[in-house]
Structure formats: structure tokens, C-alpha cells
């Protein structure tokens, strides 16, 4: 028997597919079968391909809320890859990583429905440093001005929540960087000392007496 696709080579691969109770057979040569590699096991894995999250997405995408969502996001498109918001809702797939920023204003309700939460709480990217990024919005109320930061009041520092203490230290690091950028090394050194005092206070806990000034030269400014 010849291959029913090329009608030329001897058929050596026999594929039986049962779809909606209908049985169909394909007789192919090895060459044609290799071009259709997926066909024989496509049916087997169909369910896996349309796995639950995507199924969930489809039922969401056709819901009235999502239809309203699409209308609300009309005109939004990703400047990097060109994907528009309606197409994203239809396919359930982003076009590139920039799409997250482009659609950010409309993502939270969607993520809220398909995820546990709308913010990341996993481990940070390897090599990522908090200090080079803007201060998170949670802490600004407690952020000291620079003069206050440098003349550290241990009691005030201890009264802060741990994440506010971290923000304080981040602010100092940022001030240190700024000082180095304008070659104000004296100020950079004061920042450095303040950072070391903060770290010591954090390590000792609230009951420890305020430590002595950190010895010079440990973390020399460049």
C-alpha cells in the first residue's frame, strides 16, 4: 500500500484516530509521518495541551466581566511587540515581557481571579539588588531626611518596622551613591558609617546599647 499523502512511497505508519466516535485511519510513509510527527499522539495529549489553567482562561475570557474589561482596555497596546489588549484577552497570552508594563493598569482584576494574589512573593531574581531600585511605596512616611539619617537616633531606628528599617538603610545607600557620583567623599564616608551603625543596631536588636561608631576604613568609599 502506498502512502496516502505522497502516493509514492510504501506506507509504513498506520495512524488511527477516533474523533467524536468516528474512526479514521491514515496510512503514511515514514518520511510523510515524520513531517506530521505530532499527529499520532496529538489526540492523546490534546487534553494536556488544553490543560486546566487555559481552560479556566477560556471560561473567563468569555464572561461578561471580561467583555467589559476588553471594552475598558480598548486602545491599549504593547509598544515593544505591538500586541493589543483585546488580543491578549482573547488568546490569554502575552506577546513579550514588556506587555506586563503596557497592560499593568488593567492586570490586577484579571490576576486576582486566576491567581492567589496580584503581587509577587517568591524569591528575588538571582543577582538582583534592592538598593539600585526606587524605594518601595510602603515606607516613605517613615523615611528620614538625610540630615536625620546621618545623625542616627537609635531609639527612633528601633521604633521602625523591619521593612522600614530596610528602607532607611536603602535610602542611606542611595545617598552614599549620590555622594560618590559628585565626588563628595566626606559625605559618602558619613553615609557609610551610618549604614554600618544601622546594620549593627539591626543585628543587636532593640535592647542592646547603641554601639560605638564603626571603625574607619572598613567599607571605604571608592
Amino acid at each position, binding site marked *: 500500500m502506498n502512502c496516502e499523502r505522497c502516493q509514492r512511497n510504501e506506507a*509504513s*505508519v*498506520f495512524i*488511527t484516530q477516533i474523533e467524536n466516535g468516528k474512526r479514521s485511519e491514515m496510512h503514511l510513509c*515514514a518520511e510523510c*509521518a*515524520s513531517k506530521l*510527527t*505530532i499527529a*499520532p*499522539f*496529538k489526540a*492523546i*495529549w*490534546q*487534553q*494536556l*495541551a488544553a*490543560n*486546566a*489553567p*487555559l481552560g*479556566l*482562561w477560556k471560561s473567563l475570557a468569555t464572561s461578561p466581566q471580561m467583555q467589559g474589561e476588553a471594552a475598558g482596555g480598548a486602545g491599549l497596546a504593547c509598544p515593544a*511587540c505591538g*500586541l493589543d489588549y483585546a488580543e491578549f484577552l482573547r488568546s*490569554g*497570552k*502575552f*506577546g*513579550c*515581557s514588556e506587555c*506586563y508594563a503596557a497592560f*499593568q493598569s488593567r*492586570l490586577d482584576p*484579571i*490576576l486576582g481571579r*486566576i*491567581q*492567589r*494574589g*496580584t*503581587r*509577587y*512573593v*517568591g*524569591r*528575588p*531574581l*538571582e*543577582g*538582583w539588588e534592592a538598593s539600585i*531600585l526606587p524605594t*518601595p511605596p510602603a515606607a516613605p512616611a517613615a523615611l528620614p531626611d538625610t540630615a536625620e539619617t546621618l545623625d542616627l537616633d537609635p531609639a527612633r531606628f528601633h521604633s521602625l518596622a523591619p521593612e522600614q528599617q530596610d528602607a532607611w538603610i536603602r535610602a542611606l545607600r542611595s545617598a552614599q551613591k549620590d555622594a560618590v557620583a559628585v565626588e563628595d567623599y566626606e559625605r559618602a564616608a558619613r553615609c557609610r558609617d551610618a549604614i554600618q551603625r544601622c546594620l549593627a543596631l539591626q543585628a543587636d536588636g532593640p535592647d542592646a546599647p547603641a554601639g560605638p561608631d564603626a571603625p574607619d576604613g572598613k567599607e571605604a568609599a571608592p
Partner: protein
Amino acid sequence: MSWYLEAGPEGDLIVSSRIRLARNLKDYPFGARLTPEQGTELLERIRGACRTSGDDYLDIHLEDLSPQEQLSLVERRLISPELLEQPNPVGLLLGRDESIAIMLGEEDHIRIQSMRAGLDLVPAWEAADTVARTIESRLPIAWNERYGFLTACPTNVGTGLRASVMMHLPALTRLGQIEALTRNLSKLGFTVRGYHGEHSRTQGCLVQISNQLTLGISERDLLSDLGQIVEQTLQLERRAREQAFGSDDIRTADRVQRAIGILGHARLITSEEALDLLSDLRLGVELGLAPGFSAAQINSLMIQIEPGTLQKSAGRPLDAPERDCHRADVLREAIAAADRATPAS
């Protein structure tokens, strides 16, 4: 050692644990929207980063493999069937013991998979995470503080972590409880699928339970939640076993021995029948009714009798009747070997 050649913790009821981490490079569109040139360049960058990492990978060019060899990779759970369907260039980096497999160019640029026998989620995740950290330190990865690791599908964003556990649940299957299990776990954010992914029929009484949620939960919490769900399902299965098999020893022994009889003598056997009989045999191992057999051996047989792996070992394409014949040969030989290894009682 490959997960399917051994039996891990809770190996009597749990076949394997699998972790998948999704990562993407900045500055390239996601899988489906890559141009062929971008796809090739992307693959080279990732291969290069992995080559110089000091980890030892087999760099497998899927386009050079026969359809049978490709299918066998799917059956061994080393690649997803979707990887073979991508319009863009794809690749596979395979750890020497097959416990780590990195798919390149799937829906997400990088998908790191880690597999372990038995219930072993945290070590499996740690192995995948080590690979992920190495890649993250060498390539610009799409990540931000707000959403974490950015993925093509919003159902993977955040940790990009999908963890799944394959369990053998003959009693719950026989008592018709799998559908209820699926419904209940789905409310809790977990997916239940069959061995081949079908929802309709649970082949060989095997089900996979995996997490649906990836954002708003940390990796360790996610694994611990899944671990708890699996433990609870184990307890359900153990209770169901008392109900299904406990008071009727001779019937269960009969079922196990019949399975050994057919597997040891059949000349033609379909994959579906074989998986069901192997499930009975596995039940025998779990209940101590099948001396000479082990869960690890059954794991390995389950892979060996799948179409692609059968054809790969035969070295040529086989049609369905030929496969049934080869499958029966493999099973008869395995049963005979176990008989020889068991001292006559």
C-alpha cells in the same frame, strides 16, 4: 538515576514528583511570536550560558531525531508534546541522569524540569532552582518586583513554578471517587489529570496532581500546600483501600495473579490493557502480594511499553498490531525475569 528506574519516598503509592520552572529572556518576544532568526539567536545564547556554567548537559537537536525518538522523549516526560509543535526553533538540554531537562523555545523561552521518583518535591525544586539561578546570573531574565518572573501565560507568572505529583489510586478509582477528587481539589487551586492527561478516563489508576496558582504565593508555601494535598489524598486512598480490598483478600490476590498471568503469557496487548494490568500488579506490590516485583520495575515498564519508546527500541517504525506484539514481548520477558529472580516458595 532516572526517576522511572527507581522508587522514591512513599514509592508504594507515589510514582514521581516533577517541577517545572518557566523563565524568559528580556528583549525577545515570547515563544510563539519569535522570528526564526530571533529563535535561533535566543537558543544559541541559552545554550552558550548553560555550556559555560560547568553543568554537564547533552545538547539534543530535536530536528535530528526520528519521530519515534521524539515521541519517546515525550513518553519519558523529558519534553512536552507542545515543544514539538512550536513554529520556532526549539532545543533540549538534558542532564546526564535525565533528572534535569531544559526545554528551549517552548511557550516560554526556558523551561527547567526536574524529576524525582516518589514524593520528593522540595529536593526536586531545589535542583531546578539551582539551574534557574545559574541561568539568571548569566542571562538578562524578564523579572520585576511586582509580578516576579514574567511568562507568556498569566497563569504561570510569578514563581513560574508548576509542581506535580503522579499517584497510583486504584481504590479511589474503583470506588468512582476520582471525579469528586478532581472537583474538590480544583476549588483549592489544584489540577487533577490522568496519566496521559485525559480527564475522562484514568489510565492505569494513575493521576497527576499539580498546582494552578503561581502568583501571590512563595515557592516553599506552594510546595508545602501541594505536599499536604498529596498526603491527604494518600490518606483517602488508604481508607478507600480498606473499603475496596481490605475484607476481600482472595479477590484482590486473584486480581493480582490474573494480571501476572496475562502479562506473562499474552502475545498481543494494547497499551491501555497493559497499563491497567500493571496497575493491578502495582497494587500487588503495595499489598505484598507480588514477591519478585517492585514499584521501580513497574515505573520502568510503563515507559517501555509506550509507542515511541517501543519503536525506538525496535529501531524502526511499527504499526499498531506490531506494537501490540512488541509490547507483549517486553512484558513477558519482564515477568519471566522476575519469576527467575524469585526463589520458589
